[in-house]
């Protein structure tokens, strides 16, 4: 059968979505064939999520039409429950599972198998087991979801979506929180679904995944449809160019060639019961040090311990050669350490606050007049200065950070620590969920920091990022630093071997 003769599972024509004052999407068209994985790529705020929501009926598109298996859908009465009946399902990046219920209950919530008035547990179990067998996964479905691993929870979410015989499945940033090994597993499942003739719409920031698993793509930029086509007919630089709407200057990573000064921070034998032990590391002025490791290796805990927000049982921290007690974040900030945490929305920012108060929060006590009163004017001036320096895209300092894109939110977190005069920057997954364009700017900012003589420690699950940014990389395995690589040994191969505990 040739491709043109097959009826698309889903077809969107000239989809336009207007919100008061904003055109989120304009004239987007694409079609999804059976057994195909279609990548939806674009920067944060490009309109990917909006498009997904138009398809699932969460939003009603302002103009345009939607066809399901060749038949036009009546958009005037379209809704989430209608889309489910039409066999359209979505798997969200965030977990939407009830943590205290079992996977089995979660999978069947809202559409139980019944026997008269009662739930037919036996039938449900059989049906779920059948599905797990089909996906070639073995997950204990009878224990509460909270005991499952992140990757297993993702599979339960997926199972919940397809148990209703969905034919179109939207995967929204499914792999953003997963490790490489688990991503492989997800890919394997995607291939199984493809073989069954299910069409998938794949939303992701990780472009390598697009080339690995997707057949076709649609690029969005600022709500406009840039291009759709076959993945086999395009390469990565071209795709990036389309996504950010300009040519990428030769390399994503800036050259870190500034001078490296004296050691600023040194950690000796740092130990925290059960999570990490005898960690030794140091970082100098103008230096970027990376920490690599699998999930559970203790990376996040380690940087939090340095920042005083994770308990330490043993070991010493030296700042500029002086032994320093850091019992809590207040101590850390006093010693000019700043933490850019992994969970931006939960830990990095107060989402209800505006840009100005988020930027100045750690520095409130610095801006005073008559010794006790806040100097609002000085605060506002500084907040403006640093956010401008970081080229933040915002309407005003009084805009809630909630309404900024992920990349811009991260800039506010960085501005916060620059304003607090930090000399040691701890970055915990600084580019998680951030698009290519914003990543590039954050990398540039890290370079600026090193030029200004700051010391930087970066934790990241992306090896490429660490190799591109860090002078030296420490490799953690099960709570211990196994290796330190720099120069010629700073390669994917060497690091992966250490990561897995080989050698």
């Amino acid at each position, binding site marked *: 059968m040739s491709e043109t003769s097959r009826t698309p599972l889903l077809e969107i024509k000239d989809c336009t979505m207007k919100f008061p004052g904003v055109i989120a999407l304009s004239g987007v068209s694409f079609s999804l064939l059976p057994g195909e994985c279609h990548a939806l790529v674009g920067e944060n705020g490009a309109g990917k999520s909006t498009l997904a929501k138009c398809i699932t009926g969460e939003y009603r598109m302002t103009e345009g039409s939607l066809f399901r298996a060749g038949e036009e859908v009546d958009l005037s009465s379209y809704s989430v429950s209608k889309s489910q009946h039409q066999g359209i399902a979505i798997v969200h990046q965030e977990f939407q599972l009830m943590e205290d219920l079992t996977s089995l209950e979660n999978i069947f919530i809202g559409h139980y198998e019944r026997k008269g008035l009662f739930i037919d547990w036996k039938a449900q179990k059989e049906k779920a087991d059948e599905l797990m067998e089909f996906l070639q996964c073995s997950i204990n479905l009878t224990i509460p979801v909270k005991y499952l691993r992140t990757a297993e929870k993702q599979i339960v979410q997926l199972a919940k979506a397809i148990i209703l015989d969905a034919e179109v499945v939207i995967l929204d940033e499914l792999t953003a929180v997963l490790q490489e090994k688990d991503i492989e597993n997800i890919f394997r499942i995607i291939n199984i679904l493809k073989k069954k003739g299910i069409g998938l719409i794949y939303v992701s920031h990780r472009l390598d995944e697009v080339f690995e698993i997707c057949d076709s793509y649609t690029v969005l930029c600022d709500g406009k449809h840039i291009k759709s086509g076959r993945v086999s007919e395009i390469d990565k630089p071209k795709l990036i160019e389309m996504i950010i709407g300009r040519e990428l200057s030769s390399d994503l990573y800036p050259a870190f060639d500034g001078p490296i000064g004296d050691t600023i921070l040194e950690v000796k034998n740092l130990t925290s019961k059960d999570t990490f032990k005898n960690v030794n590391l140091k970082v100098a002025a103008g230096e970027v040090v990376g920490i690599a490791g699998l999930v559970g290796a203790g990376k996040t805990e380690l940087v939090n311990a340095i*920042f005083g*927000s994770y308990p330490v049982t043993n070991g010493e921290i030296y700042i500029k050669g002086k032994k320093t007690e850091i019992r809590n*974040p*207040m101590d*850390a*900030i*006093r010693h000019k350490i700043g*933490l850019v*945490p992994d969970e931006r929305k*939960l*830990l*990095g*920012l*107060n*989402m*209800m*606050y505006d840009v100005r*108060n988020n930027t100045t*929060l*750690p520095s*409130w*006590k610095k801006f*005073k007049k008559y010794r*006790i*009163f*806040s100097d*609002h004017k000085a605060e506002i001036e500084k907040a403006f200065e640093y956010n401008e320096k970081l080229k933040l895209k915002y*309407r*005003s300092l*009084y*805009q809630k950070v*909630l309404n900024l894109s992920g990349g811009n939110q991260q800039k506010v977190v960085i501005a*916060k620590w620059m304003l*607090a005069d930090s000399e040691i920057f701890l970055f915990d997954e600084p580019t998680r969920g951030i698009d290519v364009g914003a990543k590039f700017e954050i990398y540039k900012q890290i370079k600026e920091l090193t030029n200004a003589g700051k010391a930087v420690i970066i934790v990241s699950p992306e090896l490429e990022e660490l190799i591109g940014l860090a002078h030296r990389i420490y490799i953690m395995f099960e709570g211990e630093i196994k290796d330190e690589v720099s120069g010629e040994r700073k390669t994917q191969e060497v690091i992966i071997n250490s990561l897995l505990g080989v050698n």
Partner: protein
Amino acid sequence: MIGGGLNAFIREWMILFLFIFLLVICSIFIPSFASTNNILNVFRQVSFLAIVALGEFFVILTGQMDMSIGSMVGMASCFLAGFVVNSGMNIWLAGAIALLMVITFGVINGVLTVYGKMPSFIVTLVTMNVIKGINYIYSRGLPISGLPRGFNELGMGHVLGIPVPVIMMLIVTVVLRVYTTQTPMGRSFFAVGGNHEASRLSGINTNLVGISAFVLSAIMSFIGAIGLTARTMSGVANLGDNMLFDVMTVVVLGGTALSGGRGKVVGVMLAAMLLGVITNAMVLLGINTYWQWIVKGIILVAVVLIDSNTQKENS
């Protein structure tokens, strides 16, 4: 001007417009309402409520709840009177000791919530009853009268024609307004209520802020109790027993988010005045107390309903 212009300004100060609107309506339709005497009396009555509510405001702001304020009012009242009348203490010393007592319970509330990681609802439910027990044991359930006559001025006196409790309320409002907007510590209550972890990781002393909220609540209960005791001229163990409902209504009506992080001192004060006017109007219209409870209940539900739904819009 903060972004959003006129529209946002009206929404921010809705409570003020509501208050003015209600004053005008009552003046037109209830003949006996608009006399200077009546209005000043209304304001005098609500000033105690406003002061106590401004303490609860800080607790709600940090995302917690203080159920023990009514008992604290009773404690301050009967111990202050008891120390003076039964033990012959100087009134200043008696006041200082009574203040110390309620602060102690404020600290207990705070420490159990912050360090004990207990739900503040339970902690303060317990201290509410414990304090009540102490009050009754000490006073044997009887009012303690015989306070020096001059003390009555605090509750019933006037300065330049304005009732002293109203002046107390205005001073408290101005001081707390300046505290919450112009000092780093005062601003921290909003930060902690908005996002506790992010505030902690930004170097805010979240434990201190959490405990301070309960201490402020205790102090405000004490100030309110002084005024109430001076008005009745006797120490009464159950003086604040019916206050919690009105206090919660006023705090929420004043625009404070129950989830914490958002609210205004002036809003709470205006809400107290608003509730005072509504209550007074009902009294003048001859609506009995039990019906008033029902009406107030409906008001609280309506306000929380609006609050929960505007919050949904915001996120």
